[in-house]
């Protein structure tokens, strides 16, 4: 047995075994878990349920990627050059980063267009942010929108509304949806008047989530 083997054996006996002796293992109780996921496009309606490209941080791995040169859901959305990348460490839960990037984006036959979308979410213990997220040449219903503030909501008459740069706190993390269209239809009263609106679907372009808890 050489010198290094002896040192390794002593390290194991001195550092690892005491942890195993404690009830339930302190290390296991203190262990945080990192999670990360991202996707380019998600469409959810009564007739369509599609998400692509999509990456989820898998157990036992530290990275996942997916990409698609074109994603088209007829009449609802088309995007080009979509990449989803997630990276983190499930085992020690110290951090996670996810991103979704897209090129040309067209939602609802030109109602919303953009030519560069970046959704980015980053989490460490106790902190999360959406730094690095951006929208390029965004036009909503014919009007240019530059660098929208988080959770900017714009009405889309006859369609519903859109939330731009949507940032949703989650348990130990954050979800960033750069373009989130909520499809709605009016609810009519007995006299034919509009009494409210009913959500009939969602279109999300550029989504990234990360968390550590």
């Amino acid at each position, binding site marked *: 047995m050489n010198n290094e083997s002896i040192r390794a054996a002593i390290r194991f006996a001195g550092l690892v075994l005491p942890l195993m002796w404690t009830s339930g293992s302190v290390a296991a109780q203190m262990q945080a878990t990192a999670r990360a996921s991202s996707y380019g496009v998600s469409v959810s309606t009564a007739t369509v349920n599609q998400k692509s490209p999509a990456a989820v941080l898998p157990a036992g791995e530290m990275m996942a990627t997916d*990409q698609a040169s074109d994603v088209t859901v007829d009449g609802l959305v088309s995007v080009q050059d979509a990449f989803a990348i997630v990276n*983190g460490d499930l085992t020690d839960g110290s951090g996670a980063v996810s*991103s979704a990037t897209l090129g040309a984006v067209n939602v609802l036959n030109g109602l919303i267009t953009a030519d560069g979308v*970046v959704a980015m979410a980053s989490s460490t213990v106790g902190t999360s942010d959406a730094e690095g997220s951006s929208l390029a040449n965004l036009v909503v219903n014919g009007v240019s929108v530059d660098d929208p503030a988080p959770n900017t909501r714009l009405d889309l008459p006859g369609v519903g509304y859109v939330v731009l740069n949507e940032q949703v706190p989650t348990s130990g993390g954050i979800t960033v949806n750069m373009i989130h269209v909520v499809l709605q239809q009016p609810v009519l009263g007995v006299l034919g008047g509009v009494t409210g609106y009913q959500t009939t679907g969602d279109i999300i372009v550029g989504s990234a989530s990360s968390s550590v808890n």
Partner: protein
Amino acid sequence: MTNLRLLAGFAAVAAVSLVGWSCETNRQALAPTLGVPRFHFNEFQCQPLKMTGGGRIDYPPGTADKNDPATHEYETFGAHVITSGQFDEASGHCLADKGSLEWVDHRPEMRLNGSPLNLHATSITFADLAVDAPHCTDGAVHWGGTLRVQNTGQEDLQFEVWDCDAGEPGVGQDGFAIRVIQEIDGIGDYAVMCDPSPAEPTCTLTGGNRQFHPTH
């Protein structure tokens, strides 16, 4: 009874000393200085470590400020490397156990076959701890391997990255740089390296985070 206590005390002191000795850096694993001087990444050591995370760089110029998104002058990536710190005399580097790199360059001039330049690591071969990068307060690693250009299928290009964790948050502090050793068909020489920057030769993250983990 007093003798027993005395014996227990000696045993405890001996155990603590032994564990302390076992945790000392293995000085035989010191790597020699590698290659030509590269800014602060010039002196290396073999040590068990991990570097994880991903992010965004707005290069050029690669500073902490984002470029106008309409210019599409930015890069996004995910990357990690793990090494147990074994020195390989043949290569002069510390052997990497595993790792990965996914790199997307969104600049219009870097499009290949109609898509953003997409580099995908096919092997990670080395990971050297940089011990002369004071800006990278949590840790700095020079690592690399081989990659494939996804746009064309060009294989086995060698690459190296400089990876810097300068604490939290990663944005505005951490850094990353990449160089492909051989020419990329249709592009030629390819490097995203910044000089000077707070953590030379790395470019400063405008999104994401790098996480250094000493694993000993």
